[in-house]
């Protein structure tokens, strides 16, 4: 049985960071959608594409985006990242399982996404059992 490829959206205004991370995640086998602005996330959501994970920078609107997504699209797990320690602490109150301390190496991000998706799968199985 073929398994659906999880879709990750990387929201990052810096083109070089976004390129490096997105390429790495694609090499890991994920479908990756690249966004530059917060509106891009809503465009994707509106099309009905199932997003498993949104990986977004805290700056400039990450907190507001994560809060709104939690209300409107609870199926999307959000990982916010920042190089600022306070922002990481704050994100833990918004994202539940999500927050990441980013000295972001792509490998670390991929591991985090992998854990997140594994947790989601376990949770779905438990609900189905």
């Amino acid at each position: 049985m073929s398994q659906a490829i999880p879709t990750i959206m990387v929201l990052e205004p810096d083109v070089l960071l976004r390129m490096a991370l997105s390429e790495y995640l694609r090499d890991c086998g994920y479908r990756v959608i690249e966004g530059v602005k917060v509106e891009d996330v809503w465009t994707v959501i509106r099309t009905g594409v199932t997003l498993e994970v949104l990986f977004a920078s805290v700056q400039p609107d990450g907190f507001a985006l994560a809060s709104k997504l939690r209300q409107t699209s609870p199926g999307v797990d959000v990982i916010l990242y920042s190089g600022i320690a306070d922002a990481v602490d704050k994100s833990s109150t918004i994202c539940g399982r999500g927050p990441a301390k980013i000295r972001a190496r792509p490998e670390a991000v991929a591991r985090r996404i992998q854990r997140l998706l594994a947790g989601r799968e376990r949770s779905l199985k438990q609900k189905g059992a």
Partner: protein
Amino acid sequence: MNPVTSLRPQPGAKPTLLLVEDEFSTRWAAAEFFRAEGFMVVEADDVNDALMVLLSGKSIDAVFSDLRLPGDHGGEFLSTWLEKHRPNIPVLLTSGRTDGATCAGTNPLRRFVVKPYDLREVLRLVCRMLGRGIEMPD
């Protein structure tokens, strides 16, 4: 045989396309299409980002750029920059204005396609430029 199919890059030789487009939905659709066709796609939403990618040392095989982009410079500036600094990279320009074709000039590595475009036609043009550097007769 579908002519587009025959132009697809062969496995193992994944060309990298720098896609420069500020409108997200358009960029997303084009990027997904080219990835599905076997390309690596680097997405930039303005000329500054495109130049950052080009100057980063990332190997780029072709550029597909909108002419009208936000910021001080548009796709025409990018095309001129590429002609001067990366003359061997083929560039396909696009715009909703048909007079944008003049920006492509007579250089065989510069082509123009009007918006709205058919992505299969864009693929065909890019593949032709990658394959021969000049347009082949139909």
